[in-house]
């Protein structure tokens, strides 16, 4: 039986009196490339925050690598890329390299020094992989949205995590950068064996990449392979042919 990297069991999250997530149950096993899609306000980000232990669920259980999310400590196994950092202070004085190095913190013990000679190969690899070695000394706040996202993805992958969770990472990217970003994710998945959970609005692209799809609208409406999704009469009835086609046509 494959290792479950993430398991959510009957998870309920309430926000200001209403249920943002209702009875959500699914699991992610090693090697999955899971796409999570859903309309605005459907609870996708809440789901990710609950999965990471950032938001304790009101009911149900969240397990990361078999451990309750609230007491999970093996952060070196996990990389996280949040939604584009809209609140990032443009005057924040950290360089791209300083930000990327922070991704090695889970690998360190107190006092947690990062950026020493031992860390150089990992940092270089991440900077090169994302094509941002040339801007390593630039301040993160002065970069374009796309460059910031690449820096944050480099930070997320620098420690070579087994599970990579990305919350709408392509919102701030232009189409060309978005395609490059997806290609890189595919390489990480295929060649690096990284398990990926990708939350996205970009339903057209997710169809061509993910091995499994979850459609969320406060609860899980669909969980299965893309083939199932594309050939399901039930889903056609639910989404309408046009929406279903949008996800499936690139597949």
């Amino acid at each position, binding site marked *: 039986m494959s290792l479950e990297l993430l398991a959510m069991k009957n998870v309920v999250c309430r926000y200001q009196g209403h249920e943002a997530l209702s009875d959500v149950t699914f699991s992610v096993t090693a090697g999955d490339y899971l796409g999570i899609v859903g309309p605005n306000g459907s609870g996708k980000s809440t789901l990710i*925050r609950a999965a*990471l*232990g*950032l938001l304790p669920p009101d009911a149900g259980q969240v397990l990361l690598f078999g451990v309750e999310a609230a007491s999970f*400590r093996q*952060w*070196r196994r*996990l990389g*996280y890329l*949040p939604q584009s*950092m809209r609140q*990032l*202070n443009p*005057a*924040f*004085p*950290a*360089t791209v390299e*300083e*930000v990327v*190095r*922070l*991704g090695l*913190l*889970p690998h*360190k013990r*107190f*006092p*947690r*020094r*990062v950026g020493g000679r031992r860390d150089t190969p990992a940092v270089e690899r991440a900077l090169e992989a994302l094509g941002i070695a040339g801007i390593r*000394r630039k*301040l993160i706040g002065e970069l374009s949205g796309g460059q910031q996202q690449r820096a944050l993805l480099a*930070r997320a992958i620098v420690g070579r995590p087994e599970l990579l969770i990305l919350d709408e990472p392509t919102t701030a990217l232009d189409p060309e950068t978005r395609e490059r970003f997806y290609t890189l994710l595919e390489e990480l998945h295929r060649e690096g064996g990284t398990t990926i959970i990708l939350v996205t609005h970009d339903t057209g692209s997710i169809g061509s990449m993910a091995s499994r799809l979850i459609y969320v609208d406060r609860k899980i409406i669909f969980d299965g392979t893309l083939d199932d999704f594309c050939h399901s009469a039930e889903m056609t009835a639910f989404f309408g042919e046009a929406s279903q086609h949008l996800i499936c046509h690139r597949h």
Partner: protein
Amino acid sequence: MTIVEMFQYGFIQRALLAGSLIAVLCAVLGVFLVLRRLSLIGDGLAHVAFGSVALALFVNITPLAVTIAAIPLVMLSSLGILKLMERAKLFGDAAVGIVASLGIAVGVLLTGLSGGFSVDLFSYLFGNILSVSREEVIIAALLFVLIIAAVSLYYNELLAVTFDEDLARTSGVRTGRINMILVLLTSLIVVLAMKVAGIMLVSSLMVLPAVTALQIASGFRTALLLAAGCALLSVISGIIASFGLNIPAGATIILINFLLFLCAFLGRRRLRHG
């Protein structure tokens, strides 16, 4: 009197030493606080320090005891600000506002009960760096070692939490502990800085060197060093100017800090716009 002669006075030496140590600490912590949008925490805690000083003067204790008595009260208040932010889900400015008003209210009440504002209370309100005692220099030196050691040991965690708290948590940083360390260190330095800049101006020592550094820094470590440099420059030149021109030291230090900010701001604009 020449500058060399001026430096021979014991009170000038103490003022320069204590002022430099305190200003550097304020500036270093200030960079983290400004970036966390907690710029006014220094101001809020200084208001609590006012309440603590009023209480200490009400029970008629020595100036050194006033400083020592204020430390636990201000530290408790800093934790109160954190709890208000975490538990009551208040924004930092609102939490600081509540604690600051409480501090001022207690201070004014006790001042009234003890017969109005005294010379002692005024020296805390507006600062009197030239009256720093030998014991206060020793406390400043000890705190300098403690705070610089803490910032060095927790540097990457402080940077991670300042950058983004959620990202820090998913990197295994105990954000609650780091936040607590930051506000406790801030409260220590606020109490000590009362004598340098006065309760009314203490937060300026934290905010101004930090925002000056943020205008021109090319990295996080550089920002900390630049802030410390600005603070040091302002304290030394401020004390010299204040002694030479017979003007209040605290206010002079702050005005020099503002001038440094203005230079950094205009210099940056000029660089950007050619």
